[in-house]
């Protein structure tokens, strides 16, 4: 009896000792920008892409001279694995670290939304690169800013294009039931109904699922002109492939979650050919102010995905806010951010409206030809 208790005690003490030892380290004075995104899991490719964009921004800023006198700015990268629960945990970690003055993140709207509440409670600057769900900026969080367009624009833009350019009159809508996917599909359906397009159905699939042939077979029997998918590229690729195998003549259109080169590889160029995708901005390669960024990024990291430019932009703006604040103080950074207007970024000139959304509201439309994305047009 006593022996067992002693063992218990010993283990308890040893573990605690390890822990305490780990905690008592010397801390260097630092100023950090938090970064949160999926660094593991099936969206790691996009998450890493974003991380690299942020890293590049920090690197360039530090090279150009001290941002805050006496401090070097570092990036504190955290992984949320596209899990909302983990996003909250990670957000709390960042919020609890007094060195972190601002956060750039997350990728998925379903992660950004709950995390934004944590950042709001901690009263720290939160700049979101690519989450497009409009509700996030409607929560009344004064600390929230966003550098991309939102789905209440993306959905209707897609619908407009489908109706006018593709002549679609009957549509079937699929989404992945996430905050982003369901939000975007709802916007699309809303616009379709208003535009007089018949919505044959709106169904959800679960992320991670593979077999969509029952659903696609059902869709085929309804004979739509267009299938619209609001979700991410792993499921999108499978949908496209199985659509081809089932010989479904309907056209296929998706949201910015599909805008990732891996999509074409997973779906095969054959199945992806002729697919349409809406994106949260114009063609980055066509924007002259972005040329330098594209060059630097590709020189350092090689191939660039769709989101790197946004997280680069968001990080640069965060750095600017810190610079203007002039002090290692979250409130000062927030106040400084309010003063940022007409910021010349690589995506264009940003101003932020009352909700924190950027005034750059471009939606791009791409298609896939010869195994590559091809820019078609953009709205504004």
């Amino acid at each position, binding site marked *: 009896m006593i022996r067992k208790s002693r063992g218990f005690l010993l283990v308890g003490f040893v573990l605690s000792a390890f822990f305490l030892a780990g905690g008592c380290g010397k801390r260097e004075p630092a100023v950090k920008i938090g970064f949160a995104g999926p660094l593991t899991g*099936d969206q790691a490719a996009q998450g890493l892409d974003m991380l690299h964009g942020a890293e590049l921004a920090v690197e360039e800023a530090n090279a150009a001279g001290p941002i805050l006198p006496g401090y070097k700015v570092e990036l504190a990268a955290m992984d949320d694995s596209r899990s909302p629960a983990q996003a909250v945990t990670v957000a709390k970690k960042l919020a609890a670290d007094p060195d972190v003055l601002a956060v750039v993140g997350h990728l998925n709207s379903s992660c950004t939304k709950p995390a934004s509440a944590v950042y709001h409670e901690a009263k720290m600057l939160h700049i979101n690169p690519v989450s497009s769900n409009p509700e996030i900026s409607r929560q009344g969080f004064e600390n929230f800013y966003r550098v991309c367009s939102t789905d209440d624009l993306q959905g209707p833009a897609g619908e407009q294009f489908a109706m006018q350019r593709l002549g679609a009159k009957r549509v079937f809508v699929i989404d992945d039931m996430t905050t982003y996917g369901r939000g975007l599909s709802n916007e699309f359906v809303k616009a379709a109904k208003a535009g007089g397009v018949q919505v044959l159905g709106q169904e959800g699939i679960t992320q991670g699922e593979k077999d969509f042939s*029952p659903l696609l077979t059902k869709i085929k029997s309804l004979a739509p002109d267009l299938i619209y998918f609001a979700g991410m590229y792993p499921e999108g690729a499978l949908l496209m492939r199985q659509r081809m*195998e089932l010989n479904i003549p309907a056209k296929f259109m998706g949201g910015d979650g599909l805008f990732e080169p891996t999509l074409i590889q*997973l779906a095969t160029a054959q199945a992806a050919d002729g697919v349409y995708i809406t994106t949260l901005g114009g063609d980055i390669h066509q924007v002259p102010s972005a040329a330098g960024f594209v060059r630097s990024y590709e020189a350092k990291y090689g191939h660039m995905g769709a989101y790197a430019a946004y997280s680069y932009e968001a990080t640069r703006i965060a750095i600017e806010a810190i610079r203007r604040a002039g002090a290692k103080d979250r409130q000062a950074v927030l106040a400084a951010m309010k003063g940022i207007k007409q910021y010349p970024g690589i995506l264009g000139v940003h101003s932020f409206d009352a909700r924190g959304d950027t005034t750059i509201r471009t939606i791009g439309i791409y298609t896939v030809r010869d195994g590559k994305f091809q820019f078609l047009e953009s709205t504004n």
Partner: protein
Amino acid sequence: MSAGDLFLQQVINGLTIGSVYALIALGYTMVYGIIQLINFAHGEVFMVGAYLGLAAILGFGVSHSAAGSVALLLVVLALAAGGCSFLGLMIERVAYRPLRRAPKLSVLITAIGVSFFLQNAVMLSFGPLDRYIPPILPVVRWGNGSVGVTLMQVIIFAVSVSLMVGLQLVIYATPMGRAMRATAQDPLAARLMGISVDKVIAVTFAIGSALAGVGGVLFGLYYSTINFHDGYLTGLKAFTAAVLGGIGNIPGAMVGGLVLGLLEGLSAGYFSTQWKNVVTFLILVLVLLFRPRGLLGERVAERV
């Protein structure tokens, strides 16, 4: 597309995936029949088979001739079968055999541990992202605009059925098969008759794992993307199929697999695709609760 065409297409889809379930279910049912163990790790063996297929295809490269493609397919299947067979033997030897006399709880927990180990070993080796398997056969489709069946679907069905027929032959027409049946019926008596029970169990694992490996390759070729997580869900479904058909009953596993595939496809197509897996789990739970012997199993008397 007429209602009949729609139904037919759903049936074709269902039977295809059902064939894969059947192949995996055979492994579950054989092992349970012999040592009353739910081999939790079997689903991961299936997943490893898919990855072995991927490695083989990447290694050999896709062929552009008809003969070359067929040869590649056979080689890949053989490699996956062999590799998984070896894996199954290793698992039995290292994890299960030492616990032959241990309480069932311990063995089940060990099986879960093996499952976790394999899943994560594959994840660490091949990465957590979906991996793409290039198609090794041209996409050929027979049918009209509404209903059709692809070459891959035909191959999956044909390969599964032939293997199942082959297995039946082995079980009923070879001495080893006789030994397996004897051990499943009464291990002690079998041993008394001079049968090496250890060897029989090993062979059971080997065959079951080989079949799962083949299933894995076919699965990978059919969906073109594989993930280290596929083993868990598909394994669970295949186990449901085994239970549905009657656990321990080999034709039952085949029937169970096909029936489950059909039920799954039809419920996803006609009802809702979101609830597809709930249907599967409900079948599992209901069968276990109300008809544990399954469709083809004999009534199992509780040994007092």
